[in-house]
């Protein structure tokens, strides 16, 4: 009786979820594997913009793209091509991607991917955080090394920020040049 009453009252107040929101959820789930990396690039781009005192419009002009595209880049929603990444590296003078040597050991690669992409079973990740340090050793590296964001509190020490020219020195683009 009570449920029927609730159902009737709900029916009067109900509207559908928008098609845009449903599509956005589907898009996130289908593109999750690269969204983490795009987010990392976005953060570096925004740091560089702050350092130069540029706004997104100025960056768009320098890149020769629309301000809308730059907006997508800084949101971390853009599936960037290598061409765009190289252009960003050139214009901003920063390194955005580096390719590790082929000879790097498999275990290191696994832990790198774990850290960079959150592309492993995320449940396992969180589970391991709440478990003991011994448990975390199963993930090849200590949890602190793999997921610095979850280091044991308190840890308020900030690493020194790399200067742009130092980072630029490491860029693939610079090496290629």
């Amino acid at each position: 009786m009570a449920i029927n009453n609730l159902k009737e009252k709900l029916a009067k107040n109900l509207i559908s979820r928008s098609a845009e929101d449903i599509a956005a959820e589907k898009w996130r789930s289908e593109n999750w594997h690269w969204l983490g990396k795009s987010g990392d690039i976005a953060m570096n781009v925004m740091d560089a913009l702050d350092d130069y005192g540029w706004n997104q419009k100025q960056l768009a002009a320098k890149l020769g793209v629309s301000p809308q595209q730059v907006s997508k880049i800084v949101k971390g929603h853009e599936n960037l091509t290598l061409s765009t990444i190289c252009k960003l590296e050139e214009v901003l003078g920063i390194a955005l991607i580096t390719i590790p040597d082929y000879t790097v050991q498999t275990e290191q690669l696994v832990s790198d991917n774990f850290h960079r992409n959150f592309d492993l079973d995320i449940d396992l990740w969180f589970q391991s955080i709440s478990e003991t340090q011994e448990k975390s050793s199963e993930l090849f590296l200590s949890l602190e090394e793999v997921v610095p964001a979850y280091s044991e509190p308190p840890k308020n020490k900030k690493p020194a920020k790399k200067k742009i020219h130092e980072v630029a020195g490491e860029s693939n683009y610079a090496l290629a040049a």
Partner: protein
Amino acid sequence: MKIVPIFADEQIPKGLFAICLNPNEIPTPNEYDKFIKWVYDNQNLRSFFKEREHLLKKNPYFPNTIKDAVKRTFAEMRLLEQHLKPSKYNSLADLCNFLNDNFKALDNQSNYGGELQPSKTRGPNNNCWIRIYAIRVNSEMFIVTGGAIKLVLEMNEDDIVDHERRKLLRVRDYLKQEGMYDAETYKEIILNL
């Protein structure tokens, strides 16, 4: 205000719903999707953490950098979102069990706060700083009113979190006014306590 089914069967009714504060807007926004969209935007998160660097530094789970804080938030949101999707479960009833177990009373001290209880979830992990807020209509029906990144102990210590608290109360008043509560169920709960 209106109610939007997110992962729900409105015929029973059970599952996860969300409040829509501006039903006349197109496309119709709801507070669940609005919060998720806000979180999955690096620009928003970076500004949020930059503005709250003083709170972030006091937080026991503060990572080394704002970049790490953003990454952590992404991962938390992803985990929570995965746990709220019916595709993770065999049936809607299983999702409802998860909701019932994980939406706790807003006030940590109380287990049962009466009909249309303001509730929160941080998902399956207790160390999360992300919160989704909802009104618990009964053990199977939850109406999301919003979400926040809670870096402080008390909700009133940060404007953005306090805004969510006020929103919860506003939505509860609206649901009461519309008679959207399951009085019989609550009578049973009270008798069993």
